[in-house]
């Protein structure tokens, strides 16, 4: 089967990129030697375990989340331009994460406040866009609503960081809006992991319901699907997974848009079968982009979100143009 081969190929690609991500960096690392001497205090094993591994793991999980959630939102809204970053989920999450970070609420370490704030922000932003645009909305309405929410969230972030006591706040703003995977620890990964996985788990079994939505909400309902319950389930899943991811990495754009779009023809445009492959594709793309920023020789280290935006924005334009051609 064509789809099984695709799944195998993508899995191999993800595995290879994951290992490369452990290997590539400012200091080339002999992974096997470092891995064999894990309990020792060698520089190699410290770099591997405390710098490379969390970075690769976060890229893997964040990429998979963005691809998966992009596919789920596109299927739900039956719109190839829906994705967590375009319709505001990501920037909502970032805004709430910034609120928590810069106003010192994180000091009560007993609660995982940062990811929770991200999730609340993502859910609120997604709901707002949905209320503004409505379901079955046209592409332009959805994007306009997304632009409005994105602008609002970014402005909110800029305002807060302007007022924030930290002298580095403006630099941090760039980090939150452009996404970054450097200097993350395993603690960061463990903080995002449970919510991300919970979000994924909520999406188990929605594939067939998304396929049925191809025929519209009413017909899907007569096929035994509850569109309202499905909508809430996906909103909640996206809020959990994207909220936790964004509060760890900042907003990494376009992965949730591009990956489902590229992979859709490979699964016969079936919205349900798109979910799994999009998770693999998203993981591969973010791992590759994160290796890319390490390999591209720039004076200052490039942020991974900048790279995905530079590649993604022209692609987005292309999508809008082809959508216009179809609808006019």
């Amino acid at each position, binding site marked *: 089967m064509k789809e099984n081969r695709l799944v195998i190929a993508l899995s191999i690609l993800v595995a290879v990129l994951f290992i490369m991500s452990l290997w590539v960096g400012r200091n080339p690392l002999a992974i096997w030697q470092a891995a064999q001497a894990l309990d020792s205090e060698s520089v190699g094993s410290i770099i591997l375990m405390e710098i490379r591994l969390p970075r690769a793991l976060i890229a893997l999980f964040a990429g998979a989340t963005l691809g998966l959630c992009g596919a789920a939102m596109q299927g739900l809204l*039956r719109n190839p331009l829906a994705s967590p970053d375009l319709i505001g989920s990501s920037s909502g999450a970032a805004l709430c994460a910034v609120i928590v970070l810069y106003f010192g609420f994180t000091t009560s370490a007993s609660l995982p406040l940062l990811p929770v704030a991200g999730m609340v922000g993502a859910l609120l932003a997604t709901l707002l866009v949905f209320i503004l645009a409505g379901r079955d909305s046209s592409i332009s309405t959805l994007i306009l609503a997304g632009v409005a929410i994105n602008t609002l969230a970014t402005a909110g972030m800029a305002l807060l960081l302007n007022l924030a006591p930290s002298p580095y706040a403006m630099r941090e703003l760039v980090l939150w809006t452009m996404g970054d995977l450097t200097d993350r620890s395993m603690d960061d990964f463990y903080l995002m992991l449970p919510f991300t996985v919970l979000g994924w788990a909520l999406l188990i*079994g929605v594939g*067939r319901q998304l*396929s*049925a*939505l*191809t*025929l*519209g909400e*009413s*017909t899907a*309902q*007569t*096929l*035994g*699907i*509850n569109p309202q319950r499905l909508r809430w389930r996906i909103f909640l899943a996206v809020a959990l997974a994207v909220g936790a991811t964004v509060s760890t990495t900042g907003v990494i754009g376009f992965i949730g848009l591009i990956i489902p779009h590229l992979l*859709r023809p490979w699964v*016969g*445009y*079936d*919205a349900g079968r798109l979910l799994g492959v999009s998770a693999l594709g998203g993981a591969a793309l973010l791992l590759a982009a994160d290796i890319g920023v390490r390999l591209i020789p720039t004076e200052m280290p490039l942020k991974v979100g900048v790279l995905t935006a530079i590649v993604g924005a022209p692609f987005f334009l292309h999508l809008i143009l082809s959508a216009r051609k179809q609808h006019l």
Partner: protein
Amino acid sequence: MSSTLLKTTVLSFSQTKRMILDAISIELYKGELIGLIGPNGAGKSTLLKILAHLLKPDSGQVFWKNKELSTLKANERAKALAWLEQNGAIHWPLTVERLVALGRLPHLAAWQKLTEADQQVVDQVLIETDLAALRGRDATTLSGGERSRVLLARALASEPQVLLADEPIAALDLGHQLQTMQLLREFAQGERASVVVLHDLALAARYCDRLYLMQHGKIVATGKPEQVLTPELLAQVYGVECVLGATPYPWLVPVRRLGAI
């Protein structure tokens, strides 16, 4: 054993204070093809949606055999009833075959893929609806008539016991109108039955067992086609003077609008 498949108590439904269905009831027996006819805005589609459990009536209930329809599990309901939407949507460019196969969803257990038997049903339906040659085509690029046949095929692929079809022949050419009516006629045999919203009264007279003539949310007349399709009733409901005949097949010619100059 009762031969009633669908039965309603007295139904009423209103939307934004406008009465859309005003105290009507309907009954469907095994082996029947029922036509819902009447002018635009008479409430035919609304009635069909209530029968399909898509709308909840303000008062009254729908019964499936002896049970209230709303007490059935969603999946049981999906296997019992198929609803064919008027101008139904196709949101992604699936192939015709994959789109028709969506009709098998209620029959699949969670995670189960299409079985050999499911595939046979899909193949059979594609042949019956004259779509075998189009099976690999992108369903969103089809003509209006081809598209409505694909959606009919989807509904048939669900193998329901009752098919609720909203204007299934509206976009079809003469040949495919006849083909679709024959398909519906063959479908509504034995244990199965169908309710169809139609505007072509001659075809309704020829293929349907019984008609419900609706106007302003009420049922004006019901019975065999020759009892319902009379010049008097048509004048009253449609405001049109008609000439009717029955040989060699039922025919109907609208002559002029009454009250118009």
